[in-house]
């Protein structure tokens, strides 16, 4: 090796790299997941309590007999209950027993067709088509 001046010798020394130290003991990093776990557990418990209280209130609401959303939805279907009086009146006014039964099974719908015009469906229904 030739004689080196200070600068060259410094460069030579810098070619030796100090060893890398071991990783820091992760005291700090361990603390964080524990805090996160604790927060998650607390949030989970709070959510469970909220869901439990909400379920309890809904069940109480049902059992108190007040109309609920479900009964309201069912009530949207226009359906009158058949009473004995209605059945007697229908049998008395119907031309035959069969027509009374048909009327009970397939109640007539109100026609949306105006009085002056005819429903094509009704006309076709009256025609006797031989197959």
């Amino acid at each position, binding site marked *: 090796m030739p*004689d080196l001046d*200070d600068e060259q010798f410094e460069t030579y020394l810098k070619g030796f790299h100090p060893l890398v130290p071991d990783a820091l003991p992760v005291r700090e990093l361990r603390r964080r997941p524990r805090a996160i776990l604790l927060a998650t557990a607390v949030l989970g418990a709070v959510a469970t309590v909220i869901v439990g209280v909400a379920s309890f209130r809904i069940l109480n609401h049902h059992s108190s007999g007040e109309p609920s959303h479900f009964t309201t939805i069912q009530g949207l279907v226009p359906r009158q209950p058949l009473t004995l009086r209605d059945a007697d009146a229908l049998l008395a006014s119907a031309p035959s027993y069969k027509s009374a039964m048909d009327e009970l099974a397939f109640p007539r719908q109100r026609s949306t067709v105006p009085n002056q015009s005819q429903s094509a469906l009704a006309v076709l229904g009256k025609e006797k088509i031989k197959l």
Partner: protein
Amino acid sequence: MDRRDARTLDLELLYRQHGSALLLFAFAITGDRSRAQDAVHQVFLKLLEHGDLSRARDEKAYLFGCVRNAVLDELKRQDRNRPLDDSAWFSPPDRDYAAERSLRRALAALPDDQRQIVVLHVWGELTFSQIGDLLEVSSNTAASRYRYALGKLRESILPRENSCAGSR
């Protein structure tokens, strides 16, 4: 990201940047790898827990100062004249472990203050002014001790290199 997380990240970055030089510096004072490692860890863990580098005028010089204090405190409690251990200090160029050993021995043979100055200037990349502040000497004194130490190192290392060259 809160302030504590930001500070932790800053310290991790500083550890990655200067950890090797800090370890070598601690090694140069204690001569014992595990003690040196403990001192560097102790400094960073204290800073992680309740330290504040924002007030430090020069973060790097401040870290070297902290490590020096930690090592000297430790040495006060233990045997100061313990011989240097034989574990490696450097990762040598071209895996020349003989050269690493030679450099390590040459460094170990230097007086404490000169050894510290060489490590701080060459591997810690501190200026003589920073070294002067750290070791409480003038920058001129630090510079002259450095040049003197460099001459001794060269005398210790080059005969081996020359003899190797001559044997080829």
